[in-house]
């Protein structure tokens, strides 16, 4: 019964794809690298649209913590279990072949994948959804090896527990520094939601806390609504230092817990969460899928690489501007890619999908802000059709309504993506 209802609610749209019988009976091989929001959505959609495809998902992790609401889990507002994805369970339940190992390399011309166990996989279409990596050396003194001491937890993973432990151990009157990265990066409102919920964490315990956001940018997602909300919820606790005021973190001393800012100021903090600049995951860059920007250019109908035909790049690794790098965008891209692959295998041009994005940020248990937009390919480029965000000033009832919507958004996005 649960499965039935899930099918109707979550995947009905793609169960119903109006596709030629030839595609539904296609026997081509498709391999998906990465079982995050993009890869898992794509796999589940493709399995429904074209069940005869020989579909394989390569993802070493059976379970992992996901991004949406991860700041709420860090601050203790929700249990971490609520943000855990188990792509292996969902894939197996749907009878999709899952290889629980890492993809080591991709030959984008031969369309051949090399796996950690030295096995090789060839396919007519390969979908690459590997996420992001961090440019640690953009900040003096920071490295992959010592980043754990100033945890970003931006891939959640192991640094989640470290960051949560550091947060929970903060004494009264502590200073927290959050280094916000330059564009583009995963989850644009994330650093500001983190500052908000770290303030909530202190307020709830009756602790004084100074939270400095040292930013490599001069603007950020939902800024007017965030700053007005901070004045209401957490007066005097959160300071935003934009790039123009020297806010960019240029160096860190992880042992001494100090950050040097471009403006010359040195901030000593009990907790530093340094979110480094980002680029597409090494796997995609090594496969010649990224351009000089460090991200992967794609066409807007099915997110097929413009560098290597037959290879699709989804989610945070690809350049889907003006879509943000968000879980919701990745989920929509996964489904659009599945439709496009089915059409391409039938020798047809896929129709331009209507892509949506919605991101909620939780600032307190009963207080959320949202940003959303719709996108469609026009003239070979992805265009924003409409967008909007929560008003800068609003009745508390609206913020509370959005907080309830946020809970539903997070829960359904997880279920829709991972089955």
């Amino acid at each position, binding site marked *: 019964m649960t499965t039935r209802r899930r099918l109707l609610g979550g995947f009905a749209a793609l169960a*119903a794809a109006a596709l030629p019988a030839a595609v539904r009976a296609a026997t081509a091989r498709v391999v998906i690298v990465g079982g995050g929001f993009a890869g898992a959505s794509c796999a589940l959609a493709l399995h429904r649209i074209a069940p005869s495809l020989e579909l394989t998902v390569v993802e070493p992790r059976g379970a992992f913590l996901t991004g949406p609401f991860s700041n709420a889990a860090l601050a203790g507002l929700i249990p971490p279990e609520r943000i855990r994805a188990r792509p292996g369970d969902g894939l197996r339940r749907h009878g999709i072949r899952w290889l629980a190992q890492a993809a080591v390399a991709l030959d984008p011309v031969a369309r051949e994948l090399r796996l950690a166990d030295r096995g090789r996989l060839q396919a007519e279409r390969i979908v690459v959804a590997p996420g992001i990596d961090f440019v640690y050396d953009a900040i003096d003194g920071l490295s992959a090896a010592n980043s754990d001491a100033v945890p970003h937890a931006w891939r959640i993973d192991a640094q989640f527990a470290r960051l949560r432990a550091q947060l929970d151990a903060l004494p009264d009157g502590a200073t927290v520094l959050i280094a916000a990265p330059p564009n583009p990066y995963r989850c644009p409102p994330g650093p500001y939601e983190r500052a908000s919920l770290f303030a909530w964490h202190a307020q709830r315990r009756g602790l004084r806390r100074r939270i400095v956001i040292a930013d490599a940018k001069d603007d950020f997602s939902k800024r007017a609504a965030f700053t007005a909300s901070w004045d209401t919820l957490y007066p005097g606790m959160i300071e935003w230092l934009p790039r123009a005021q020297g806010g960019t973190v240029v160096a860190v001393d992880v042992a001494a817990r100090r950050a040097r800012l471009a403006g010359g100021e040195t901030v000593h903090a009990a907790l530093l969460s340094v979110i480094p600049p980002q680029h597409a995951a090494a796997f995609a860059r090594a496969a010649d899928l990224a351009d000089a920007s460090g991200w992967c250019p794609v066409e807007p109908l099915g997110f097929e690489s413009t560098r290597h035909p037959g290879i699709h790049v989804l989610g945070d690794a690809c350049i889907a501007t003006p879509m943000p790098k968000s879980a919701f965008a990745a989920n929509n891209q996964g489904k659009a890619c599945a439709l496009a692959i089915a059409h391409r295998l039938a020798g047809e041009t896929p129709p331009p999908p209507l892509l949506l994005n919605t991101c909620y940020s939780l600032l307190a248990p009963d207080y959320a802000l949202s940003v959303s937009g719709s996108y469609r390919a026009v003239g070979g480029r992805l265009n924003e059709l409409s967008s909007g965000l929560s008003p800068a000033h609003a009745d508390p009832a609206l913020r509370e309504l959005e907080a309830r919507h946020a809970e539903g958004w997070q*829960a359904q996005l997880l279920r829709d993506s991972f089955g």
Partner: protein
Amino acid sequence: MLPRLSAAVLFGSCALAPLPAAAASGACPNPELSLGCGSCHGAAPNALPALPPDPAPALYARLARLRDAPYTGTVMPRLLASLDDQTLHAIAAAVACERGHAP
């Protein structure tokens, strides 16, 4: 209209109903327009309201009301803001078909 409505009621109330013939055979129109709906609307705990099992004209009317709402405090008016009537009709037809109405 009546047979379709009965089908919808049955479909909405009985979780074990078979897949609608149109959906099962892949005959629903414009799946590329409705792929974002299920990202929010579904059966997860606390989920936003499930997509209503309405026939296409009623779904179109709902979508048009949301698009034309003067109040943009929540998400749907923003997402629909620039979609024309023809596109809203197409989305409504896609969703109605997926929820069990004949295409």
